[in-house]
């Protein structure tokens, strides 16, 4: 009987390896081609979206402002409200997923809906976000472009009826393309897709995301030029002592990020409480709030890259810088918490830039000989606040590096980002992205780990848990084997190694009190013949489902579907151990 086990084991490896190679080659080729397409769509989508924002801005801030000229400076209060009203109508009656900053919706689709996003979301998000940002709403364009790129990619994948793993991969590629084109940061886009959307770093995913990200970046550069939003004055690390100040900046950035998470969703809760106010009106109220702030501090309106650039160049006073942190925080919460549409990426960068510039101004005044210019602290602050809020340190470092094109900033940036990320994780488990999902009762960390079970194949954990015996074996021989085997059941096979059934200890229980028949019965007499089977290429989730349906502790593994050739077995205990590991891993990842 041992021969049967050994032969089946080696043939299984061969079948699995060749199947894996076949699958990997065709899937990879398909994915790379589609990733290219997604990169093209993402790149042009980002350009179009950017143009729409500028167009809306022009119409709102020039023509509409002229129209409202009779209101004098107070026209600025009405414009974001008008934008909010139209956004409210779009998100209420066309696509509710277009509300908010977009990335949680993409993450939710990947975790719970196999990456499926409705095609109408792309169109709604473009319109809603362009209107919101163009009319002065305090939000970023990156979240929307992530959602737009992901929605387009999901639509293409669903049209082609691709399997869930490929849809998710392409959705991440769409998100990467959006970030890449928007920031002119192809590497940052790739890492964003891996770190935030998929939550894992795998070679197969990396290739697809690189293809779409590079394609989108090339398209953006062709049409918009190879420009960077920020240019840092020449920077170098003045003294190693400066690292302490950057670490302190990281600490402060964590505080700002956690405050942002709390206030954003608290604002959402406050608006939700007013059920008497129609949903489509609430963004207009948020817009009024932003407009009211903008009368005094117009810097809070829109994306704010120009304000960030000026802060980096040291154009603002210390008090104004710190005031801008608070005012931007409030404005963004009003815009997004009321139901507006836009991202949190730029607002995080904005607050980080002001915080960093402010701290840089202070430390440079106190310790001029050992510190760099405030501009360097502004850049580092941007990365630190975003990393703390999103818990995506790798993405943060790379995007900031690509935004500034200054390698010397890497060391202080990494220190501040790591400190900010760890402190923020200690203060609050959820991030700007996962908080929304947690409030819906979705534990992102556990779901991510559980989804990984769809990637783990039966072949990776199967073993020889069941003792393989001939179905002709006399029952008295089976009873002798119980004393010597460590295995938990018997898998009955015929002379060719094909599955005939299984004998569990439950089946043997009846034999204990009726020993007269031991020599006259064989394994086939007592085996349960109709037994669920698994194939090596099925997933652990498939195994768990079959264990639940069949109330067995061991399942035989056959070489392929509709075959009965036994190649091994898998135990319920092994699968449950994997699930326990998931829980532990998820708890560990909650910390980071």
């Amino acid at each position, binding site marked *: 009987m041992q021969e049967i086990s050994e032969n089946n084991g080696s043939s299984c490896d061969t079948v699995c390896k060749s199947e894996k190679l076949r699958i990997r080659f065709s899937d990879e080729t398909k994915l790379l081609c589609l990733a290219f397409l997604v990169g093209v769509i993402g790149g042009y989508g980002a350009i179009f979206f950017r143009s729409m924002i500028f167009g809306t801005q022009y119409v709102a801030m020039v023509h509409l402002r002229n129209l409202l000229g009779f209101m004098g400076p107070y026209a600025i209060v009405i414009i974001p409200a008008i934008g909010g009203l139209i956004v409210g109508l779009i998100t209420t009656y066309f696509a509710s997923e277009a509300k908010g900053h977009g990335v949680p919706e993409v993450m939710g689709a990947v975790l719970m809906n196999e990456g499926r996003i409705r095609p109408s979301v792309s169109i709604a998000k473009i319109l809603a976000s362009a209107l919101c940002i163009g009319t002065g709403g305090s939000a970023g364009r990156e979240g929307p472009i992530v959602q737009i790129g992901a929605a387009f990619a999901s639509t293409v994948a669903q049209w082609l009826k691709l399997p869930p793993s490929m849809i998710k991969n392409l959705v991440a590629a769409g998100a990467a393309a959006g970030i890449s084109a928007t920031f002119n940061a192809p590497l940052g886009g790739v890492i964003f897709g891996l770190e935030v959307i998929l939550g894992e770093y795998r070679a197969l995913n990396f290739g697809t995301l690189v293809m779409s990200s590079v394609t989108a970046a090339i398209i953006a550069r062709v049409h918009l030029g190879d420009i960077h939003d920020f240019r840092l004055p020449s920077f170098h690390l003045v003294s190693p002592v400066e690292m302490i100040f950057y670490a302190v900046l990281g600490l402060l950035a964590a505080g700002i990020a956690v405050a942002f998470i709390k206030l954003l969703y608290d604002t959402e809760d406050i608006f939700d409480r007013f059920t008497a106010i129609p949903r489509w009106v609430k963004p207009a109220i948020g817009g009024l709030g932003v407009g009211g702030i903008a009368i005094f501090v117009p810097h809070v309106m829109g994306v704010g890259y120009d304000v960030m650039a000026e802060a980096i160049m040291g154009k603002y006073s210390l008090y104004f810088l710190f005031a801008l942190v608070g005012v931007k925080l409030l404005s963004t919460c009003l815009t997004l918490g009321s139901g507006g549409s836009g991202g949190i990426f730029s607002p995080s960068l904005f607050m980080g830039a002001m915080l960093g510039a402010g701290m840089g101004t202070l430390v440079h005044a106190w310790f001029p000989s050992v510190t760099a210019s405030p501009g360097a602290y502004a850049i580092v602050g941007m990365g630190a606040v975003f990393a703390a809020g999103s818990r995506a340190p790798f993405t943060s470092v790379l995007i900031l590096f690509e935004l500034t094109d200054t390698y010397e900033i890497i060391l202080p940036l990494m220190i501040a980002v790591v400190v900010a990320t760890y402190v923020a994780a200690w203060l609050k488990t959820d991030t700007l992205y996962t908080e929304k999902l947690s409030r819906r009762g979705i534990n992102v960390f556990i779901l991510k780990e559980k989804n990984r079970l769809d990637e783990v194949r039966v072949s990776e954990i199967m073993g020889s848990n069941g003792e393989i015996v001939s179905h002709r074996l006399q029952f008295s021989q089976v009873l002798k084997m119980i004393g010597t085997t460590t295995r938990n059941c018997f898998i009955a096979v015929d002379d060719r190694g094909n599955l005939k059934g299984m004998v569990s200890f439950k089946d043997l229980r009846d034999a204990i009190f*009726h020993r007269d028949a031991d020599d*006259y019965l064989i394994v086939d*007499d007592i085996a349960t013949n109709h037994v669920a089977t698994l194939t090596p290429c099925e997933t652990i989730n498939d195994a768990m489902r079959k264990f639940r349906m069949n109330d067995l502790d061991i399942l035989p593994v056959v070489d392929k579907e509709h075959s009965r050739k036994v190649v091994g077995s898998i135990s319920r205990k092994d699968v449950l151990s994997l699930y326990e590991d998931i829980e532990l891993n998820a708890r560990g990842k909650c910390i980071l």
Partner: protein
Amino acid sequence: MIAGDHNERESSTMNLARLITEDHIIMDLQSTESSDCIVEMTRALDKTVVNDRTELISSILGREQLAPTGIENGIAIPHTKTDAVRKPALVIGRSRKGVEFHANDGKPSHLIFLLLLPARKKGLLFSLMSGIIKCVRDAEKRERLFDTDDVQTFMEHLGATRLFHISSLLEQERTQQNVPA
């Protein structure tokens, strides 16, 4: 006698008693080949027992291919578990000429117990086989079974009527003591 032994006898007794009926006893089997004998015995079963006769015969013969069902002393217990039968059934046949069931002692079988169980009842196999073996273990009893021509006497010798009697007594006792079956 320890409690376990008593329960063991009781359950195999109970189960076997329920299966022995006059209609399922063939006093003079004509076939001399095991496969023909099996076909002949299945004819005693009507539609209340058999779902699919062809499948039933195929299943019994398939089991015969795996390992012989002849045991010592002229006894054979061909059996199978199959959904071709609706409920457990036992057909008892007696062959004067003997049928080759490849018993351990090389002798042909004269008393054949065809035991059929639905797949979901395979757990009864041990108790029923054990009951049959105990029933025909005694050489004198086997002689009496071979000699008589009367079905009722045959059943008497088989201990069926006594088995029925014991079975109903046990049932009464359980009812009085409210012991679950």
